[in-house]
């Protein structure tokens, strides 16, 4: 691999317990800047958990214990004194189900700005428009910014969630099965959008859809029962995996 490779996130020797259950076992992973990294594996393998480690969303669950190191641009995000709110604004998240607030389209996108204390109306207007354009939603909603976000079709809701995230200007975007509630056409649109976003942002995506991982990601990690079995360039994972278990999974012989 080339020397110019720049990692935004480095996970080393990460263990995570939910109470007595160990959900992640000594996981190592590097996320390269402005690339798409996909996490694949069967349900319950820990890929969503790993995703939520990266912006400390697991902190909200009682009884979670984490050891190891997660470096974001060289700084351990689990070090004492880290501003978790700033971290989460920097490492944003798109969830499995589109989950706009029951507010207007406008208020959804402006939410993060209000939280961040941005009060200048002109500034907010500019950022809201830029974010909606960035999520390819502007032309769909520009005439109904004051309508409830819940009136939008599901795929537009999901892109609204992306716009809401872009408004807080994150560096990394985590996506937790962002297409699982969408039909194939809407899925294709989100995938296209991801390929556009990755020119500016670093993306980590959890997906159950292996074709999706193969189509859009630069790197893939195959996880099984809390372990990172194999992590490599996507082309290699899908053509010449080193581990037999990875081979079984991607060729559909799993289980």
């Amino acid at each position, binding site marked *: 691999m080339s020397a110019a490779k720049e990692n935004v996130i480095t996970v080393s020797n990460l263990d995570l317990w939910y109470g007595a259950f160990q959900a992640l076992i000594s996981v190592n992973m590097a996320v390269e800047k402005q690339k798409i990294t996909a996490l694949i594996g069967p349900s319950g393998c820990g890929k969503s958990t790993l995703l939520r480690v990266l*912006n400390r*969303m697991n902190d*909200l669950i*009682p009884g979670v214990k984490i050891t190891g190191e997660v470096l974001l641009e060289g700084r351990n995000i689990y070090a004492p004194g880290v501003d978790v*709110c*700033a971290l*989460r*604004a*920097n490492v*944003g*998240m798109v*969830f499995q*189900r589109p*989950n706009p*607030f*029951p*507010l*207007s389209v406008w208020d959804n996108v402006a*939410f*993060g700005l*209000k*939280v*961040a204390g941005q009060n200048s109306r002109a500034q907010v207007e500019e950022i809201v428009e830029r974010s909606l354009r960035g999520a390819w939603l502007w032309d769909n909603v520009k005439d109904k910014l*004051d*309508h*409830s976000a*819940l009136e939008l079709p599901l795929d537009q809701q999901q892109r609204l*969630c992306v716009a*809401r*995230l872009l408004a*807080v200007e994150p560096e990394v975007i985590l996506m937790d099965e962002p297409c699982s509630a969408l039909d194939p056409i809407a899925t294709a649109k989100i995938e296209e959008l991801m390929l556009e976003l990755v020119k500016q942002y670093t993306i980590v995506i959890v997906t159950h859809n292996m074709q999706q991982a193969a189509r859009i990601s630069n790197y893939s990690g195959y996880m099984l029962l809390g372990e990172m079995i194999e992590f490599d360039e996507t082309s290699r994972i899908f053509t010449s995996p080193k581990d037999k278990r990875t081979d079984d999974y991607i060729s559909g012989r799993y289980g």
Partner: protein
Amino acid sequence: MRIPPKYTQMIAVAVLAGATLATLAVLLFIIGYVLNKGLPVVSFQFLFSNPEDMGRAGGIFPTLVGSVLLPLLAIAIAMPLGVGTAVYLTEYTRETRATKVIRFGTDCLAGIPSIIFGLFGFIFFVVMLQFGWSLLSGGLTLAIMILPTIIRTSEEAIRAVPHSYREVSFSLGATRWETVMKVVLPNALPGIVTGVMLGIGRCISETAAVIFTAGLALRLPRSVFDSTRTMAVHFYTLAREGISNENAYGTAAVLIIAVLLTNLAAYWLMHRFIARRTK
């Protein structure tokens, strides 16, 4: 002998519909009876003039004022405390033995007869703290009385806010406090308002706790340290002492209408609020 399902179905419908009708009929009968007896007395004069001769003649204006001020004061004290407690219990603590004890405590508090609150208010606020029979003593006592209702309804309303809203808010960099203020409370508001309305309803109709703490004065209160009389207490006094049955019914009629109007206003406000949030 087994009754065929067709008939059990019919019987069930008849019994259930009968129960509903009976409930409605009782409600309508009470309201109709009181309004029928009371409305002839009610006039502009009756509403806005002072009582004379202990309420035998004249109007009910001071008690109208008392019935507005006392619940307002009670709500002003109980709402921040109650909603604050509910937020703390749901958002800031995990389910532990301590929160269970607190919840059990509020449930017990809700079951205590109002006369006990009255007695406590009399001993503590009126006598010990020397607030005397006053709006303040009455307001504090009623606030304690309705606190459990407000805590529990707010708690339920806050719990009903989908967890995903909180998750999104946190994921966008909001603190817990910002999440509470910008996401949780706005979405829980209709439920919280319902609890507050229940509280106001209890305050307006309360007699026992009010007589002991706010007193029976028929003057207009000039400050929170003045005694006042609410419509419910006025009604009770007029009827109990046999002063004037006509005026008692008149007061009752006004009381019923006032409660109806408050509820209507609350529903209207709530729907307007919801409509504005999700147009």
